[in-house]
């Protein structure tokens, strides 16, 4: 059962505009969320994270919003640049309840294309 879902497999945005990537999760125990960016033939690169005690975290052009009641998070990229074209994965874990058996749950990814 997919506990983290990214329902949009792809997204195209014009350069300079906002990119919004969405992620939904089902497990209410998740309290730590991350976004990874992946270029072809490379491993995922950590982009930004947010813990459940916050509803927003910002790092330069990247902002992650968390809506706990809706079990939804989103990544906003403003302004979008052609170099942002990549696959974006969201991931979640139950950090507070972490034990040696805990793990990250990944979504299936959204492929973002920023058109020059």
């Amino acid at each position, binding site marked *: 059962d997919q506990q983290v879902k990214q329902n949009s497999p792809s997204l195209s945005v014009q350069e300079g505009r906002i990119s919004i990537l969405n992620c939904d999760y089902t497990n209410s125990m998740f309290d730590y969320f991350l976004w*990874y960016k992946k270029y072809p*033939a490379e491993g995922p690169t*950590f982009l930004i994270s947010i813990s459940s005690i916050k509803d927003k975290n910002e790092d330069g052009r990247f902002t992650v919003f968390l809506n706990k009641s809706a079990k939804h998070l989103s990544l906003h990229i403003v302004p979008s640049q052609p170099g942002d074209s990549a696959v974006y994965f969201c991931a979640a874990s139950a950090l507070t309840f*972490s034990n040696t058996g805990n793990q990250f*749950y990944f979504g299936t990814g959204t492929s973002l294309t920023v058109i020059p």
Partner: protein
Amino acid sequence: DAMVIQNPRYQVTQFGKPVTLSCSQTLNHNVMYWYQQKSSQAPKLLFHYYDKDFNNEADTPDNFQSRRPNTSFCFLDIRSPGLGDAAMYLCATSIFVGETQYFGPGTRLLVL
């Protein structure tokens, strides 16, 4: 720069021929993970080590084994690769379980 290194980047093996993928890290992290990722799918956790403690996911086939001889290195052994094992294999590390994971570049395995 501290990093996670995977060798080789591309590996071709024959059906049924054992293969070993390697991962090393200079981050001095406690936890090392192996993921399998197939096209358009989420990375699937196979197992992880917390220091020397091995944690196998329930649905990881017996065909997949792992070794961690020291803090820096972790190996993925596929004893008898099948065509369905062709995938990208990602190694990751974190300080503690559940915290931010840092990935290597991956090894793409092709099974002929």
